[in-house]
Structures are given as structure tokens and as C-alpha cells.
């Protein structure tokens, strides 16, 4: 009997292999490794959510951290103000909701403009959020950061499993969505909006939908990560450089694959850590490596795995 069609897709196989490997890590890894991978898994969700928007809807969102930051800070502030009367999980949901609302407010006007202006709008949104955090320092903790009273768990293993499960579920949903009829329409809208319109699709509606989904997962992941770290700071959730790292991860892993984005994120963080003994040089090497992959293997790591058959 032939395996079901979804098992024959290389991205799915690659994803499953990585999940299997990930499930084994707690057996052998130290607490340090587990902590590192926990962060990597949240970053993987950021990157997958970003890929849905860029790889499928064709819109470059330079401000993934706007959505992440909204989710993280909303959840963090609520918890800091209301704990222990309000459950941590409620704060997480509120964070995701805030990211969705913020995303819609940003995307509605931004999707009206074409070409690079959408990206610029999202970039400005990040800078605005960053300023807001600093200006309303008594609420947000400003540049020092916001510490939250609740944490998900003190056990590195428990935190690892939460992040791992969250990534697996998000990945499955985002990947399934990208393969669904809506994913096809999204790709069509991204590649040739004029034709998609002529085929009867409301392009703006579909792109807005992609933005909302992307915002939901970004915000959710951001909020969860706050309760893993116990603090929220501009440097970890909002700063442009965080956004750049997410974008690099997604492109490095393989655009338009969703799963590739997760691989890229884990790879990027692991590389950064492995090269840490080199000090400042590590960042340079990782950046250089990313640059080389983007220049010579535009389909990313997953694209390399799938071979070059699809091109030409």
C-alpha cells in the first residue's frame, strides 16, 4: 500500500524527522540545551507565521516584532497588574487577541498601498511600538524591562515540552493552511493580484486573513515566551534586529514552505550558540552564512534538501 500523499511531501517528512529528534532531546540534553531550544521553538513559530505572509500572501512584513511585541507586552502588563487574580493563560490569550487587533488596525491601511510601501509601513509600526514602550515606562518597564510575577514552570523540561508542543501544533496548523485551497488562493494573490482579482477572488480580504492568522500566532508565541522568560524587554521582543533575525530564519530555511522557516530558526539559534566562543565574530559568521544561502540557494535549506529539480 502506498503511503498517504501528505507523507510523500518532503517538507512534511523533514518536519516529522525534526519533531522526532526534538522529542529525544530531553532524554540527553542538559538544562542549558533545553533552555536554548525552548527559545528556538518560539522563534520558529515567529518565523513560520512570517512565512505565511511573505511566502504565500507575497507581502514582506518588516515588522514581525510589532505583532510579537504587542502579544508579549499585553500579556506581560496584564499579568503584572492583575496577578494572581487572573490566570496566566488568560493573559496569554489576551496577548494573542491584542496582536490580532493591532495587526488588523495596521494591515487595513497598509494593504491599500502597493509594493515596498507595505513593508515600510510595518517597519514604522515597530519603531512606534518601541517608542511607546519607552514613553509609557511606568506601565511597560521601559528600557529596563517588565518583569512578570507568573512563570509557566520552573522546570526546564516542562518548559521545553510546552514550547515543543506549541511549535508542533502551530506548525501543523500553518502548514495545513498553506496546503489548503485558501493557501492556493493566497499564493495566487501574492504572485499575480490582477489575475487573482479577475478569477473572482477578493485579494485584500485574503491578504487580511493571512495577516490575522500571522498576527495570532506571532502574538500567542510572544505571550508564551514572556511567561517562559519571566520578563519582557524591547531587546528580546520588539527591536528591529529581532525582526531581522526572524526574517533571516524564514528565508534561510526556505521560503514558501512554513516548515523550512522553523528549521531555519532552530538552525540560526543553534549556530549562534555553537559559535559563541568566537565572541563578536559569531554574529558575523552567522550573518555571512545566511547571506551565502540567500544568494546561492534562494530556496533555502529545505530547498537544498528538495534538490534543484523544480527550478528551470
Amino acid at each position, binding site marked *: 500500500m502506498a503511503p498517504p500523499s501528505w507523507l510523500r511531501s518532503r517538507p512534511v517528512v523533514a518536519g516529522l524527522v525534526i519533531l522526532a529528534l526534538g522529542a529525544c532531546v530531553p532524554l540527553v540534553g542538559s538544562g542549558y540545551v533545553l533552555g536554548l531550544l525552548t527559545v528556538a521553538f518560539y522563534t520558529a513559530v515567529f518565523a513560520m507565521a512570517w512565512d505565511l505572509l511573505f511566502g504565500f500572501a507575497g507581502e514582506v512584513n518588516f515588522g514581525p516584532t510589532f505583532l510579537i511585541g504587542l502579544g508579549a507586552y499585553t500579556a506581560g502588563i496584564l499579568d503584572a497588574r492583575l496577578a494572581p487574580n487572573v490566570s496566566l493563560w488568560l493573559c496569554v490569550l489576551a496577548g494573542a487577541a491584542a496582536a490580532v487587533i493591532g495587526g488588523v488596525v495596521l494591515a487595513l491601511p497598509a494593504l491599500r498601498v502597493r509594493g515596498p510601501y507595505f513593508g515600510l509601513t510595518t517597519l514604522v509600526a515597530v519603531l512606534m511600538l518601541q517608542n511607546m514602550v519607552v514613553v509609557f515606562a511606568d506601565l511597560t518597564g521601559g528600557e529596563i524591562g517588565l518583569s512578570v510575577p507568573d512563570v509557566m514552570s520552573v522546570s526546564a523540561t516542562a518548559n521545553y515540552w510546552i514550547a515543543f508542543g506549541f511549535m508542533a501544533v502551530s506548525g501543523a496548523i500553518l502548514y495545513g493552511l498553506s496546503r489548503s485551497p485558501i493557501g*492556493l*488562493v493566497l499564493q495566487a494573490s501574492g504572485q499575480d493580484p490582477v*489575475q487573482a*482579482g479577475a*478569477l473572482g*477572488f477578493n485579494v485584500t480580504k485574503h491578504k487580511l486573513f493571512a495577516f490575522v492568522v500571522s498576527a495570532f500566532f506571532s502574538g500567542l508565541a510572544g505571550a508564551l515566551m514572556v511567561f517562559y522568560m519571566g520578563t519582557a524587554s524591547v531587546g528580546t521582543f520588539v527591536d528591529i534586529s529581532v525582526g531581522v533575525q526572524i526574517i533571516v530564519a524564514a528565508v534561510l530555511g526556505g521560503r514558501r514552505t512554513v516548515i523550512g522557516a522553523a528549521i531555519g530558526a532552530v538552525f540560526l539559534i543553534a549556530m549562534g550558540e555553537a559559535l559563541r566562543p568566537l565572541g563578536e565574530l559569531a554574529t558575523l559568521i552567522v550573518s555571512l552564512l545566511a547571506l551565502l544561502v540567500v544568494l546561492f540557494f534562494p530556496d533555502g535549506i529545505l530547498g537544498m534538501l528538495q534538490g534543484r529539480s*523544480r527550478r528551470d
Partner: protein
Amino acid sequence: MLEVEQLTKRFGGLVAVKNLGFSVRGGEILGLIGPNGSGKSTAMRCVMGVDAPTAGAVRFEGRDIAGLPSHKVSRLGVGLVFQHSRPLNRQTVLENIKVALIPDRLGMLLHSAEIDDRARAIAERVGLGAVLDRKPPTLAFADLRRMELAKAIAQHPKLVLVDEPFAGLTATEVAAFSELIAEFRAEGRAVLLVDHNVKSVAALVDRAVAMYLGEKIAEGTAAEVMRDETVRRVYLGGALVRAARDAAPAAHGAPLLEVRDVEVRYGKALAVQGVSLHVREGEFVALVGLNGAGKTTLFNAISGLVRHSGEVRWAGAPLAGLTPAAIARGGIVQCPETRELFGDMTVRENLELGGHRLEPTALAERLDWLFDLFPILRERTGQVARTLSGGEQQMLAIARALMMEPRLLILDEPTLGLAPVILETLSNALHRLRGSTRLTVLLGEQNVTFALPHADRLYVIDHGRLAWEGEPDRFETEAADAYL
């Protein structure tokens, strides 16, 4: 089924379509034809809702749809077969067709078997049955076009708009596509074909509407439109006149430019097929052909801007391997149809950039000479190029090319989008240019009347191949009918 009345579309100051009116009934194929820049595509985009018309009415089944967004127009039953589109390269042909069958709802999370069956049926109908599981980049050009057709059929439209159905297809493929389009008619759908010339769609259309510079100039059966005086004047020009030339160039001797068996492919489409031609020193050679015939592509191959097979020799040596910049420095200067002026710079700055390799005194002399050739530019020296009229911009583009002191000037469609009165000024300038220098010119033109008076020799290019070659005075008797 479709009625268009007083349709007008302005882009800024440019009037692309002016008071256009026509109608299409169910079970009828109407050809909307006109040379490049005549506004036919804009008219089609206004019907589809891709562009909103500035004024006028577009009625579909009695309902005014002017200004509706395209996805709403599409849902009312209007489909568009695109000439070029960007297919989903990672998905199979079948999935590409399925896209057109998916309803515009966000709840569509699962693929349905019904959509799958319908997509397969449509693929069979257009002849894609054998390549269903291939991905678009591996398909032949004609199959990509079939896929576009399949997507339009999937919409089940009552009115089908087809943009240049036969561009880039071989004769057999044209026949197959004609049949597919005729099927629409047999099913009672209305079809609007948009194309460059009457000839290619004559056998298929029931009626044709000819457009020129945004306006309707003729309407009737294909034969009537082809006989129409105005149409003949637009395509062939009025009386074909020759300008006297005092010193005829050497009719023999080694060619300055020699093109041998040049072929250019754009992906799957063969844009130039085995073209060989030559230009001798001091000669004025015209390459005439309709838009899309391959003129610009051939010029770009000569200038080293596109990859090509075959050989281009310049002054006896092959040009292969040289960069476009080196070729231009070697003396082949191309003045592109898009003009490529620096819009925010003044006339003088544009010219000085063209002559950046000249010594200051030589530059001043050259400028003086050009201002004598194009006196209007002298009056406009301080004006920003973007604000010049179309004709002035064209003169500036030619002048800038001449600043580079070419040995061979390639002029690509200088008349594109220009009003007849400007053509005369431009024609006079070319005449003076030819009289005052030994410059060698290769002119690409759609407008034969414009090209003919100046040319020493003429090549006719059609669908990427040379169709005729000879002296201008033989053109009217030998090639004019084939050209229309």
C-alpha cells in the same frame, strides 16, 4: 450582452481611451484591434474592472459595472484569458486550474473531490490531460497558454475577454486555439478578442472594431475593416512616398553589422527565430513589423542586453562575450522605444550625460549641432525631461543617443504613441540627419509610412522571422498586403 458606451480612460494627462462604444452579443466573437498604444488593452481592463474608467458606461446584461472591482465583475460572469500571467510554479497544472474553481470564501479549508473532477474535465477539454501533474516551469509555451484558457473556462463566464490569443504560437497551435475559442461561441458565450492586427483574427471573429489613439476608427466584418481607408492609413500610412536621397551609399562592400541566425527565447516563447540581416556603413535600414514581431528583442540581442544564439558581427569581429557597455562604446548605440530619459534632469543634463566621454569643446560642438538638428530642444534646454511632450521626449532621446557619437544608431519605434503631426517633425529631423552625416541607422518601426521614405533597404519581420527583404519601392506591390 456587453455594451460599452462613451468609455473614456485618462492616466494623468494621457487619454488612453476616448468615447469608445461597442457591444458584444451572446454567441458572437468581436475582435477589438489596433496597433500598440491604441488603447485596446486599456479598454479591456476597464471592462474587467482592473482599471476604473474615468467616464462612460460598461453594461453587462443590462447592469452598469463600470468601476466595480474585478473580483465582483468576475463573479457576475466575466472571465479574462491573460496573455501573460505568473502561474503557481510549485503547484501542478491541476492545482493551478483548481485555484480558479475555489469559491471566494475563507471557509475553504479542505480540497473537495468535486473541484478535482471539474478541474480534470476542463484540463481534458483544453488538451492538458497529459501534463496534469507537471509543474508550469516544465511546460511548453502553448501549454502555459492552454492553462490560462482553462482557468478562464473554470469561471464559467458568460463573457470571455481574450488578450492577444495567438501571440507567440505556431500555426498549428493557432488553429487549435481558434477551435477552443470558437467553442465558447458555440456554447452561446460572448467573446471579446483583443489583438494587434485584423489579419490574425479575421477567420475567427464575427465582427471587428478597430481602434487608433484611443478612438474607434472602424467597425464591421473583418473584411470590411481590412478594406477601410482609415484602417489602411493607420497600418500602412497613406500614400507611400520616398524621399530623394542624394548620395546613395555603397550597395556593395563589407557589412558594418552582420546578424547571422540569431534566435532569442523568453522562457518557452521563441521571440526571434533564425534572423539574419546586415547593415553596410552609411546605410539606412528599416526593420518593419507589428508590435510583438520581435524587433525590440532583436535589437536587444545586438546590443548584448539579452542572451541569444547565433552570431552578431560588428565591423568584422564577433560581439559575443562583450558587455552591453562595451558594445555601446564600440559604436552601436540603441535608442530604446521606452526612451529611458532621466525624467528629473533637464534637457541639457540629459544630453551632457550622453556625451560624458567627450572633451568639453567637442561636447559643446556636438550640442550645437544637435540643437540645429532639433531646434525645439534649444528652447527647452533648462526644462525637466519629464515635462516635455511625447514628441520632444523622443527627439531628446535620439539627441542623447547621438551625443554618444555612434557609428550605428539603432532607433527602436521612435513613433510609438506620437500624434501624426509630431511624426512629420520627427521625419524631417531624420531626413536632415541622413543628409548631413554618414551615420548608419537601423530603424525598427511598426509605422511603414514613417520608415519607408528614409530607408535604403527594408526588412519585414513577422512572428520573429524575416518575412520579406528588399528595396522600399518594391514594398507596396510585394509586401504591403501581407503586412496588414
